Each structure stands twice: as C-alpha cells, then as structure tokens.
C-alpha cells in the first residue's frame, strides 16, 4: 500500500472518500442544503455537481426533516444517500425523523436503511451556541443508529467509506475545527476503516486517555509533554462511538491502571459517562485510581473567545488532569 506523497487535510480526506464512493457505486448520491452549485457550506462537495450531475448531487429545500426523511425513503428502496446537515446543530429539526423513523425501521420491518448523515460538528471556531454543538450524546442513546467520529484525515476517509457501505444508518460526525487544522497522510487506494474499532494512536503504560475527535489531538500533545517527565501516556482513539470498542477500552485500562476519559462534548451524560460505566463494571480489578473525565462545561457553547476557551478542554487542562491522576 503506497502512501500519498503529501499529507492532506481532514476536509480533503472526506471529500476524496465521498468522491471515490460515488464513483464506485452509482446508487450513492448526495443531498443537502447548498451542496451542489455552492459546493457545500464547507466545500466538502466542491466539484461534485460538475462531476456527477444534478441527479446525484441534490440541492434540497431548507428543511432537515425533509432531508432526513427523504434520505430514508430513498434508502429503503435501495439507494445509498449521503445527506448533509449544514451544521450538526440543525439536526434537531429532523430529530423525529432520525429517532422514530430511521432508527426504528429495521427493528420493526427487517428492512435496512443504508443512509449516511454527515454532521459538521464542534466548536473552537467562535461559532456560538448554535454552530458549535457536538450532538453525539443525543443519538448515542438511540438503538438502531451507528455513530462515528474520526479524528484524522486517514480515519475520516476510511470511515466515510465504511459508513456508506454499511447497511445501517450511520451518523458521521466531522469536526469543523479539524477540517483544516488536521493534516495527515492518507493511504492510497480503497482503505476502509471498520466501524466499531478503536485505534491506539499512542502507546503507553502509565496512564490511558480514552477519547475521540479533537480530544485525540489534545491528548497527543499532552502525552508529548508528559513523556518529558517520564510518564508514558496511552491515547486510545475510539473512532466509533456506537458501537463502542469495549475490548480496546478495557485493554488500555488493563495496560495502565489509570484512565482519563476526554471529549469536547459537554460533561454530563456525554459518551464519556458510558465509557466510565463500562470501565467501572468490566475493568474494576485493573483500576489503580478513580476513573476521571475531562470535557466541556455543562453550558451552551459561548460565543466570546475568552468564554469559549474557558468552556473547552485544551492541552494544558489535559496535562493537569493527567498529573493529578498520575499522582493518585
């Protein structure tokens, strides 16, 4: 497997993955607001209308319920729609379609709903309360959906492919901050990252950080800093939130005995709470310290830079938390 000569951005990786899938399978099509002529609010689908035409790149009305419902309708009769919410925050307008129609359909009828819903999520971009949400926790609780959240370009490309090929509905959380801030090498060729498999992004034996999305980047930076003091931090990138890779989580806890769960989403009832419960139940005897979590404040995402910076985790906060846990 050869590597591309240069690293590409997370955004380019998603674009590439989507494009490759649309070339590979005619039933794959894209729909959403401003995805066609405009190339998408974030330019993920730039050039797609020109290449694939208006039957495969559809500019829809403004209406998340219609977009999600229509995606489902086309999926149950055999197409593979990739619908986009312009900002993850707007998914709430289509919440009913997602949780009552999409999620429950296979359970009730044994008919697959092979659709993907792309959700540009996350903060750190001064977007304020309605353009910065990480909504995964709402849907984490809905059986019937699958959730993925890549942190690197390679994972972004591999997971969009996996999501499209999966017969179940997949929510794809792409982080807006990472679009251009995450650059990396992406393997050439048709490489699919399996859904439900975490990846150890950095191996360590003293403390583990279980995280996803922007958390992976903070954790890796913190691990570099901690290494200078001789503390080896393991960073486990969940990559998939539903299903969670329980085995990998428990493996990292067994290896280290101390675990910090980290995510950008707010603290209470976030995905991290479930990870903590799993660890407490299934890795109890391997714990040498309390299971700790670090996440954003339990507030809406604030707008002013000083407020948002206080709201969010960051590398220094991760280092501080690791030091406290390490000293236990």
């Amino acid at each position: 497997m050869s590597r591309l000569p240069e690293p590409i951005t997370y955004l380019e990786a998603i674009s590439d993955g989507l494009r490759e899938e649309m070339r590979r399978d005619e039933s794959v099509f894209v729909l959403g607001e401003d995805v066609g002529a405009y190339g998408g609010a974030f330019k993920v689908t730039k050039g797609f209308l020109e290449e694939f035409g208006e039957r495969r790149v559809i500019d829809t009305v403004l209406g998340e319920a219609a977009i999600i419902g229509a995606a489902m309708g086309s999926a149950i009769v055999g197409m593979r729609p990739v619908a986009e919410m312009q900002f993850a925050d707007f998914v709430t307008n289509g919440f009913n379609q997602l949780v009552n129609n999409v999620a429950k359909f296979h359970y009730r009828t044994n008919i697959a709903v092979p659709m993907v819903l792309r959700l540009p999520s996350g903060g750190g971009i001064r977007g304020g309360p309605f353009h910065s949400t990480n909504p995964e926790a709402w849907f984490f609780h809905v059986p019937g959906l699958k959730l993925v959240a890549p942190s690197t370009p390679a994972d972004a490309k591999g997971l969009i492919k996996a999501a499209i090929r999966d017969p179940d509905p997949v929510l794809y959380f792409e982080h807006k901050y990472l679009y251009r801030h995450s650059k990396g090498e992406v393997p050439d060729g048709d490489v699919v990252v399996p859904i439900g498999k975490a990846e150890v992004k950095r191996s360590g034996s003293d403390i583990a950080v279980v995280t996803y999305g922007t958390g992976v980047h903070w954790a890796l930076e913190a691990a570099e800093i901690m290494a200078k003091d001789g503390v080896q931090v393991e960073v486990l990138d969940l990559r998939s939130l539903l299903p969670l890779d329980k085995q990998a989580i428990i493996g990292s806890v067994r290896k280290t005995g101390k675990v910090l769960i980290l995510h950008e989403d707010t603290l209470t009832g976030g995905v991290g709470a479930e990870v903590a419960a799993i660890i407490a139940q299934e890795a109890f005897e391997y714990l040498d310290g309390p299971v700790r979590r670090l996440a954003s404040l339990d507030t809406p995402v604030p707008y002013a830079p000083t407020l948002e910076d206080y709201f969010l985790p960051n590398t220094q906060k991760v280092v501080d938390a690791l030091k406290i846990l390490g000293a236990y």
Partner: protein
Amino acid sequence: MSKIDVVMPQLGESLTEGTIIKWHKKPGEKVKKDETLLEISTDKVDSEIPAPASGVVTKILFPEQKTVEVRTVIAEIETDEDSAVVVLGPAPAAAKQPAKGPAPPPPAPVAAQRPVSAPAPGRFYSPLVLTIAREEGIPMAELEQIPGTGEGGRVSKKDLQSYLEQRKQGAPAAPARSAPPSQPAQPAQPAGRAAPRIESTLKHVDSGELAAKYPPPKYEILQMSNVLLKMSEHMMKSVQTSPHVWGVHECDMTRVDTARRRNAESFERREGFKLTFMPFICDAIVKALKQFPLVNSSIEGDKIILKKMINLGIAVATENGLIVPVIKDADEKNFTGLGRAINDLGTRARTKKLTPAEIEGGTFTITNYGVFGTVIGVPIINQPQVAFLGTGSIEKRAVVINDGIAVRSIGYFTLGFDHRIVDGALGGSFLETVVKLLENFDDNQVV
C-alpha cells in the same frame, strides 16, 4: 554479551562481611536469572542468593566457607543482557533510613527516596493493587509494610511493582541484629509442635584433629552453623552483660481462652490463619510497656536509652535455628494487626523471606515455650534489651476462687529482666499488669 560481577551483598546495615556457605553452580554452568546461585551466611542467618541475570557462570572467585567483605566480587556471569554491575539483595535503602554510605546502586529507585512509614491504619488499596498482591501471593500483613508513594501514602501499582522487583532480586531473609532467645522458641501456633531438628541441617566434619579424637561410630562431629555460632556467642554475651533476675506469675487465661474459642472460626475464615493466644498476649504486653517505659529501654554505659517505639520481637523456631522477627511499632497495631503481623512474620521466618529490617531494632521480646510443654521457663535476655517475657503452656488446673475450687486455664509467665535498671518491684509490677490485662479480658469482645 556482557560480563556481570556478582558481589557479596550487604544484607543489612552495619554488616561488613559474609560467609560463602555453598555454591549452587560451577564455572561453565548456565544459570537463569533469579535462580539460586549460592548460599551465604551473615550474622546468624543463612540466605539464598539468586543470580542477578541469566547467562553462564564464568568465574567463582572464593571457595565455600570463605568469609569475604561485603561488595567484594565473588563470581562472574557472562550474559546476553545489557547490564553493568548489578547488586544483589534488597537495597539497604529498603531499611528504615535512606541509604547511607557507599551503597551500591539500588535496582529499584522508588523505595530509596523515602523513609519507610509505618502502614497507616486503614490505608487504601486499589482493586489493581489487591489483584496483583493476590496473584503474587502477598498477604495483607506484607502489603501493609510496603512503602506507599501514592495519594495519602497509599501503595500504588508502581510501589507494589518496585517492591516485587526488589523482592525478586533481594535476599529472602536478612540477618538479625539481635540474637535469638535462650530457648528454642516455637511458631506462634497452639500446642503440639515438636522442635525442628537442627542437627539434620548441620554439616558433618570427617577430618581434622577432632575427628581423630572422636571417631565414629561412637562419635559424630557436626560443624556449628553460623546461626548456632551466633546464638552461642549471643547467649554467652548476654549472661556476661546482664545480671539476670526472673519473676514468675500465674495467669488465669480462662477468659482469653473463651474469647479465642468463640472467635476462632470467624477469625480463621476472615484472615486465613488460626487465632492463637499470641495476639492476646502481645496486645497485653504492648499496653503494659506503655505504662512501664523503663522496661522498653536499653543501657549504654551509664545512660538509659528510653525507646519511644515498641518493637516486639517474637521468637520463632526454624529448621536452621532461632530467629526473632520484630513487629515494628506494635503499639500502632490493633488486635487484628498484631495477629496478622505475628502470622506473617512467623511464616516468612520459616520460609527465609524476611528482610533485614524485620530482624533488627526490637525493644522487647516474647517467647512461647509453652508449645513444647514447658510450664515455667527462665529466658535469657535478648541484648540490648532489658527484659524478656516467656510464656509457658496453658493447662486446666484446679484453683481456688472465692473459697471454692474451680477449673481454670492457667499459664505461668516468666519475666527475665536486667537488674542493672529493672528491679524486682518494677519487674513484678510490669508482669502483674500484663497478667491482670489478660485475666480481665472481655471475652464478649469480637476479635
């Protein structure tokens, strides 16, 4: 490939030499890391020394029976492993004070940094630490001795792993500073044990002057082991140093016996070992020593050194001789803690797994010769202490209570004391205090 020097370990502070008793490997033989390479004797105890690395033994530099100074190179191993001079035995730093003097680099850095703190009562052990302890066969009493650098002084995974490392590389048992008691003491178990046969562990001497003077089959000559040599030396010295006086008191142990029998099952189920009289007796002694600090002291010239800690030595008979492991800070332990410590030290004394620190620093000693059937004993003081309590067998006897005859469990306790500072009044009061504590024991107490 690199060469590793094997040096004579310093198995206790202030030790200056050790004697090679037996080599387990010859030059040219392969040896695995942690496999026994040789046996040495220092002071009075033999220790097995594990090889510091895997490889081939290339040189044996001193023969058996040779005594060499500590840190002398005594053998060489050629190994694949990447290592320089590796020291054997627990780092001296594992003892109470931080390593002083030119100690060889300790294999594990952690324990060297802090003084060993007494295990705090109610120290927290995390699930992982307990899991590892269970897997490595470390009983709670031993766990409680491990220094903790975690929050609140707790033993963290790292602390436990360092301890295990040290234990592997270190000597299983270390020499005691103090000598054994005058009579073969027993393990702290209720009656019935025969004394171990020391003769079987001694070497035969077949040649030399004595062999000619005392030929077989009428005679057999045995080489006194270092343990015996040290014991004889110590006993002679003790008798020459301290003017011994002994007082015997009768103790009605009925209540204690009742409590012991009542709690036997639940105690054993909980702790994994039998409940004997020893914890009861030690508990009473500790309390009494607090009231009579002079009994817990030593003498230097014309000064009395009062000791603020109570380190109880419990005499244990092993197949190699007597050994007196010490319960440090016994006054900080509750009943159960004493029980565990007694059981743990006794077990490890017999399996040669004591550390040097555990045989040093006693301030008072107890011996239980009652297990052998002795009713009244007359112990020789364990220098440099000034008193020694011996307990005889506890039997049912007819006694007079309130002008009637009753059947009670009676034992005779002997206090041997140094009349340079402890006179009959003091000795008698102290022992009476111990006796009264035991006679008035609340047998409804749950232990």
